[in-house]
């Protein structure tokens, strides 16, 4: 069954889009990731214009983050103060990001920048996941599951920065500049790539800020809601590329898929899950890279000139 998307201005197969949302939802339930970094490239592979894919994915991530944050909020796993500082950076970053997005679009370079951002970030994240997971698998085989311990309070250059703030939930007393900068950077990525940015935010919170892992996911989800909402709003105003119909279809598929994914995931070992996710991320990255490098069959592209 075909459905005409009002903003993308094209007709798509409704079951394919539901399936796409469901598949990514399944994976996000399985691996505990947002899935924005898979949704956007898959929509582009399907033929949805990249600009519409990015803006609509941001809209869909608002919903998936809202559905995820409640459980963390009830358990008190959201560091509200840290979340607000990250958010302040995120709002500035995403606002600049949307502006850069519109500018690149007028130059005809947005598709390239989206692809390049994906290749770089998916390559780094996927590569690191694969290395880390294969080490973990190797180690558990040899020593029967020993977990590496990390020091809780490591003093580094971070502690020399001014504007120190106390974050009670995280048990941290650090400069507000670092979370502001992280929020800013992730906000930029949200606007340019249509991702929540959890895959950058979560490692940054753990390794750069030294936050306890228990509050990391909840706090990250909390600020992702507002940053993606900001991106959705600004893209709607500036580029009119948010397709609500497409977002709703992805959402329905995603919600159902995530439930199955979460159940299926509990049967697998954590390091095996990470290795699988790493492989998946790397294959999306390689596909995008391949498309950039291979000589295209059509060297010329057309676009309406009044952009």
């Amino acid at each position: 069954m075909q459905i005409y998307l009002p903003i993308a201005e094209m007709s798509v197969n409704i079951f394919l889009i539901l399936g796409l949302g469901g598949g990514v939802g399944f994976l996000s339930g399985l691996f505990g990731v947002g899935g924005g970094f898979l949704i956007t490239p898959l929509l582009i592979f399907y033929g949805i214009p990249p600009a519409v894919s990015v803006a609509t994915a941001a809209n869909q991530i608002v919903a998936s983050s809202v559905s995820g944050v409640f459980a963390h909020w009830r358990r008190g796993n959201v560091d509200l103060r840290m979340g607000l500082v990250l958010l302040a950076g995120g709002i500035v970053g995403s606002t600049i990001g949307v502006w850069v997005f519109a500018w690149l679009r007028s130059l005809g370079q947005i598709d390239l920048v989206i692809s390049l951002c994906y290749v770089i970030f998916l390559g780094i994240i996927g590569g690191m996941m694969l290395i880390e997971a294969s080490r973990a698998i190797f180690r558990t085989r040899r020593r029967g599951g020993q977990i590496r311990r990390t020091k809780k309070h490591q003093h580094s250059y971070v502690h020399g920065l001014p504007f120190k703030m106390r974050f009670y939930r995280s048990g941290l007393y650090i400069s507000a500049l670092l979370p502001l900068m992280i929020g800013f950077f992730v906000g930029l990525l949200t606007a340019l790539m249509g991702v929540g940015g959890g895959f950058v935010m979560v490692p940054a919170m753990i390794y750069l800020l030294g936050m306890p892992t228990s509050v990391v996911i909840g706090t990250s989800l909390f600020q992702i809601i507002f940053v993606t909402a900001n991106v959705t709003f600004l893209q709607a105003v500036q580029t009119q590329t948010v397709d609500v119909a497409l977002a709703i279809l992805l959402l329905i598929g995603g919600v159902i898929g995530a439930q199955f994914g979460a159940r299926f995931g509990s049967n697998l070992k954590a390091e095996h899950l990470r290795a699988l996710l790493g492989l998946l991320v790397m294959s999306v990255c390689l596909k995008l890279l391949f498309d950039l490098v291979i000589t295209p069959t059509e060297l010329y592209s057309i676009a309406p000139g009044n952009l």
Partner: protein
Amino acid sequence: MQRPVAIMNRMFTALAILAVLGVTTTKRAHADALIVDLSNHLVAITTGFTGTDVLLFGAVQSEGDVIVTVKGPDQDMVVRRKERKVGIWVNSESATFRNVPAYYTSASNRPMEIIANMQLYSDYRIGLEHQRFVTEIDDKDRNSSHYRDALLRNMRAAGLFNKRPAKISFLSNQLFRTDIHFPANTPTGTYTINVYLIRDGKIASVKTTPLVVSKTGVSAAVYDFAHRYSALYGIIAVIIAIIAGWIASVAFRKR
């Protein structure tokens, strides 16, 4: 969506009327009379739109060749050329074409080159190759014909320009018909359909009829709203997402 049977029925009724009209007009008008109509003057892009065919039918008084051109609204198009830079393909030089029809197809009952000579088509701008675009180019290495060819190629690949003229079939010496195909990505706007009756290499008669392609129903309302009240649209999109996320968290809450 209209069923083919319904269209056929309507077509034959209309043709019968036309034939009668044709006979009556002979007596008072000259022999170049040309009557044309469409099965539908409105192509409605609804939520279920996957492309459609519009039937063009008509009658001619005396023998001659018929050419039909369908031209969509004009727009500006940018054509960009990719170049390999540091191993990857990047958009580099570009050209802008003004007044490019968003859709263009033609149809004829015999090959166009047999019906008349190129000069006639060029004078009346009949056919894709005789469309003139205002071109602005900023590429020192390539001339504009590369870009023009690329524009036509891309539009053809998108199904918005036809590759070769479609077939007009004559049902008798006087009645003719052809299907005009509008793909799923048909741009909206007012289209102009010209029907030329050509005899002895000269245009004997021309009929022009408009066709409107517009979005209707939910998709039209959404598109219109998104462009006219974009801020409100953005806010609503966010609110829908928040509500949907909340419903999902309640529905699948772990107890």
